[in-house]
């Protein structure tokens, strides 16, 4: 891991007596692409505003490069923000928008012009210098907002759902652009989104949040393959979350059938939840299956078929390139590596978090 750049130390924040962030701890390293992921209202923007200096935490500290910046105003922080709603200056041209921060820093005219040129090239909007923001499409405005931030060469760039308003194709293009910019510029990114696919595509590290708590921090692979609780499992893509009993190490009882797995250390006969991704459920003939069931639903999704199979009293969600018609008796097999065991939520708080999906 590279050097630590930002550390949020036990940050709490409430609005009107309602707790929005509860003792949040988060460390971000230099040149890392960190994504805050979570459902609407979970406190992503609030976290970003605390980083940007637009909100002060009730308790806790913001440490930037070893210095406490909790009470440093936004205009004195070595970072820039791309706001959720572009927030371009509508009475200024594109060039004036981009030059705004540089003029305040009293850079030379030549330097500013070079930067404008460079930034517009970077966001693929060459030649838009003299246009007004209103005359640009949503996607173009968003790219200008990004250009306006990066010309200041911040050490940290905060982006609040910057691609939210764009259509799918443009969004994907912009995702690649952003990753390219990050690699080219060596800036640390903190990126907010509630789109799990976007988070998986772009991030080095994903922070899954819900109701002001961090649910899990990890690489996209870790978050997807080894969700730590039912909330994360469910939020990151479809999955089968099934109550089960851990019989002993590497053996789990799912709906009355014993499956081999790879997890250890949960104790004996302990209630747990298992997560099995739909694409990890194999359908075979009933005789070959570890469990038997009947197909109840079938939808064609383009890349694969989505089926629901009733087995052991549970509706299993299955993704497969092979098609099994409705009413067909099938067997279910799951590879031990694809069974992810999670502790049952313990406290009432966690229970609430798990149920409120």
């Amino acid at each position, binding site marked *: 891991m590279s050097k630590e750049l930002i550390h949020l130390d036990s940050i709490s924040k409430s609005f009107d007596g309602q707790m929005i962030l509860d003792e949040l701890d988060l460390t971000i390293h230099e040149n890392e692409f960190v994504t805050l992921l979570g459902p609407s209202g979970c406190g992503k923007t609030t976290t970003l505003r605390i980083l940007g200096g637009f909100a002060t935490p009730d308790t806790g500290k913001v440490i930037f490069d070893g210095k406490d910046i909790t009470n440093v105003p*936004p205009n004195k922080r070595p970072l*820039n*923000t791309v706001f959720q709603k572009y*927030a*371009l200056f509508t009475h200024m041209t594109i060039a004036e928008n981009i030059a705004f921060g540089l003029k*305040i820093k009293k850079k030379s005219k030549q330097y500013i012009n070079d930067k404008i040129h460079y930034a517009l090239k970077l966001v693929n909007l060459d030649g838009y210098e003299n246009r007004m923001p209103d005359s640009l499409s949503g996607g173009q405005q968003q790219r200008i907002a990004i250009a*306006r*931030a990066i010309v200041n060469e911040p050490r940290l760039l905060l982006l609040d759902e910057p691609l939210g308003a764009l259509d799918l194709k443009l969004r994907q293009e912009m995702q690649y652009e952003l990753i390219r910019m990050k690699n080219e510029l060596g800036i640390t990114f903190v990126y907010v989104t509630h789109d799990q696919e976007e988070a998986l595509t772009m991030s080095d590290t994903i922070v899954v949040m819900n109701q002001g708590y961090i649910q899990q921090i990890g690489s996209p692979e870790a978050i997807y393959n080894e969700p730590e609780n039912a909330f994360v499992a469910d939020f990151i893509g479809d999955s089968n979350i099934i109550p089960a009993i851990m019989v002993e190490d590497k053996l789990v009882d799912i709906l009355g059938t014993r499956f081999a797995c790879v997890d250890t250390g949960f104790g004996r006969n302990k209630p747990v939840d298992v997560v099995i991704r739909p694409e990890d459920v194999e359908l075979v003939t009933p005789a070959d299956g570890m469990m038997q069931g009947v197909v109840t639903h079938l939808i064609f999704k383009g890349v694969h078929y989505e089926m629901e199979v009733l087995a052991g009293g549970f509706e299993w969600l299955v993704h497969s390139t092979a098609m099994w018609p409705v009413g067909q008796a099938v067997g279910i097999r799951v590879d031990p590596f694809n069974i992810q065991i999670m502790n049952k939520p313990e406290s009432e708080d966690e229970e609430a978090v798990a149920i409120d999906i």
Partner: protein
Amino acid sequence: MKTAAKKIYIAFIILFLYAPIGTLMVLSFNASKTRAKWGGFTLKWYIDLFHNEEILRALLNTLLIAFFSALAATIIGTIASVAMNGMKRRTKSIMMGITNIPMLNAEIVTGISLMLLYISFGMKFGIGTILLSHITFNIPYVILSVMPRMKQFNPSTYEAALDLGASHTTAFFKIVLPDLFPGILSGFLMAFTMSLDDFIITHFTKGVGVDTLSTKIYTEVKKGIKPEMYALSTLIFVTVLILLILVNRSPDKKKS
């Protein structure tokens, strides 16, 4: 058929609304001094007007008061709008109510109240008291035209300016003010017009020997028929008309 009826109806409304002013305008070009007879076209009254020193002094007073009261009201009103916008919704609507009441209040009540206030503070009546009164009744008009712009203002542009390194002052002057400018300008023009136009409040708060155009016309007309006054009224009417047209046009100019 229906549209013809509509047109006639509108023609009547315009006729009744503007016939008195039209008469005044026509008479201001009438060479004969009596109102009953058309004595031919003349610009004599207009020329006399501009040779009458008292009237010119009243004109100067009017313009100075209109300009400075509008300027002061614009500054105060804009600051008030910015502050009110930052208030909680309930406090804001109460404040809006308070600022609106003076506009609905009968002018004569405002005029007399102000007069009593000045007397009780032992103030000397004159240009100063007129100016204060005009600033007072102009502020609501400014607030009324700045507030809608203020509501449209996207607060994250202000934060974006701070984010890019601007101080609060720079962010206010470079980002907030230009965005509010159309509202501020129309507020200023509105206040200027209102001040130019006012008779009643001025009448109660002016000192002896100090006159604005409207009070001057009033005293002159009381003394007897003076065609110069028709000419003067015509000029005031045209000025106010032009200003009102400007007020109504200034917000869209920005848009296009």
